[in-house]
């Protein structure tokens, strides 16, 4: 349905997005994961025809959209990362404004405004000014504004940044409903791994402007089939101990957590005994040792050597 072919964007000789190929089938929910600065927003802006790519193409149903993006824009809804609303107007007035801009017919617009407000759970607050809303409520109206013209494809750029858990759940439920009930194709970018795990059938992982891995959740997990993620709870923190663990055989990554350490290591039956031995030498007690079920976060750590929120 929608695909990018070697999509590239350079700013002053620096490639921000580097020959990205991705596709979205109709009705699919696809995640685009990456840390801050990975190039997700630039990719989305190019797909949405807001920025012209340096090279490459964006195709809708096999037709290029670079020269004439009007067909794409008709079927596309974009939820930007920023709150793209007029703070001085009410939720209803904002939706009416964007509905008119999208040329939704007058009679249909009234019905549609109530539908999208219902969808984001803010029907009873529609007369209130946006500036009086919480961050979460603003983000929900931000989504509602992108749904007014009933888009077939919805692109959401980090729609849950900095909001309360209740609004976050509501947003995730809304996106899931749009995808499952209404058949809307979703491209969801986030650096919250758990959201993507929850919502998306397929994931693209991006870093330094490139796609570094792609596949279903299970396919990506299989990358770690030969590795374990181990959570270790320690009696106290010690830099010397952390450095020592990094030097143990088969240890790939060590990350300090609130309780102790998170270790990514090749499957190795001697790791526990090596750990205990090192802890004894440093005078540290191991309170808990747990081999964790790998998550996409672990896949990301494995692929990039850093966590998503680095």
């Amino acid at each position, binding site marked *: 349905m929608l695909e990018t072919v070697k999509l590239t964007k350079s700013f002053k000789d620096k490639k921000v997005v580097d020959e990205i190929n991705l596709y979205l089938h109709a009705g699919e929910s696809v995640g685009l994961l990456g840390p801050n600065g990975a190039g997700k927003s630039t990719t989305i802006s190019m797909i949405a025809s807001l920025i012209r790519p340096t090279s490459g193409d964006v195709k809708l149903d096999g037709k290029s959209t670079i020269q004439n993006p009007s067909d794409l824009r008709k079927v596309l809804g974009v939820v930007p990362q920023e709150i793209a609303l007029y703070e001085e107007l009410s939720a209803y007035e904002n939706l009416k404004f964007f509905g008119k*801009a999208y040329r939704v017919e007058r009679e249909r617009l009234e019905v549609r405004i109530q539908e999208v407000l219902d969808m984001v759970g803010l029907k009873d607050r529609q007369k209130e000014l946006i500036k009086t809303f919480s961050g979460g409520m603003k983000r929900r109206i931000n989504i509602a504004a992108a749904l007014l013209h009933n888009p077939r494809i919805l692109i959401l750029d980090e729609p849950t940044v900095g909001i309360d858990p209740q609004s976050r759940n509501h947003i995730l439920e809304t996106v899931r409903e749009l995808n499952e009930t209404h058949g809307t194709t979703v491209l969801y970018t986030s650096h919250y791994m758990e959201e993507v795990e929850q919502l998306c059938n397929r994931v693209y992982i991006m870093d330094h402007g490139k796609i570094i891995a792609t596949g279903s959740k299970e396919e990506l997990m299989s990358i770690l089939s030969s590795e374990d993620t181990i959570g270790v709870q320690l009696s106290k923190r010690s830099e010397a101990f952390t450095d020592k663990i990094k030097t143990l055989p088969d240890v790939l990554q060590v990350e300090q957590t609130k309780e102790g350490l998170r270790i990514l290591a090749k499957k190795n039956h001697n790791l526990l005994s090596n750990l205990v031995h090192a802890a004894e030498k440093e005078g540290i007690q191991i309170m808990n040792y747990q081999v964790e079920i790998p998550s996409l976060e672990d896949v990301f750590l494995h692929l990039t050597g850093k966590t998503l929120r680095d």
Partner: protein
Amino acid sequence: MYPVFYAQFLKDKRKPLLILLFIGLSILATLIFGNSAWGSKTSVPIFASGPNSEEIEQKWVKLLNKDSDTEYVISEEKTAREQVREGKRDVAILLMEKDYRLITASDMPNIQLVEHEVHKVFTEEAQLQAITGSADTAELREEIDRYLENPPLTVQTKSVNGGELTSHNMGTQLLFGFTLFIAMFTIGFKVNGINADKVSGVWNRLNLSPVSKTNMYSGHLLYSFFIGFFQMAVVFLIFDYMMNYEIGPLHIILTIAAVFTLSSVSLAMLVAGFTKTPEKFNMVYPSVIPLIPIISGVYVPPGVMDNPVFTFIADLFPLGYALEAMMDTALFGAGWSEIMLPVSLMLLIAVIYMGIGINLGERERC
């Protein structure tokens, strides 16, 4: 275009304070500064020192106050110097038998006017003394006055179109000046809505809708024009109908105001194009705009602002042209043909600045 225009209107409808404040400011500034510049005489303290100071003061105070718009008042030396030092007076004059000294702490245009006037009186007195060959010129003055009652030659002054020559009216000039100047602020803050929309993401959202970029710009710029013109029209109507100011034929004044609004919208668009963000605009625009009336000579009588660099810079802004056209209309009854040049120059400014401004605003936003 209509949804963009209407959204801006809704925002102002909800918060009309800024517009009302600017209308009030235009009226207030004209009333305060206009009336003081118009009605009251400027007072200048004069003093002499030495044993015959009283005699010198009495001699010159009469001559200085004869046919003068400025009031010269005899004062204590200490008081006069203190008043200048504390900024209560711009200038004081130390009188001598045949000479004078200006005591001032600044270099304002009104000091030049006082200097000019005092110099003329002292030169005239010196000429009379040279004719009589003594310090007593009273008799010769009387003789000259008598002679001038029936002069051999009389000069009649008429305006270009044959009417009576009208004296310059600073009250009217300040009314036009303040109204145009304050409207520039209103217009600027409204045009800055484009930058605000670009930063907030509303612009991108509209970009994805069927609304074209031309319509997006038109909606914003037309609204800025509408609100700026509305503000000026309200002020002019109040002064014309409620305060009985002579502002000339309203239809011509409003036409000039409309063209000025258009070029001010373009000027604001140029600044918006350079600054790109509302915060930078709010920093640059209010810093630059207050300088325009100063260099355009809005606060001083015509001819005082004669520095070629300042005049050249002033020529790049529409305020001077609008003021010139409005003053010509109000004071000298100028018609369409007489105001054609300043109006055309304002239109030229509008076209050039708008083109550059939109181009700059669209860079890296393809």
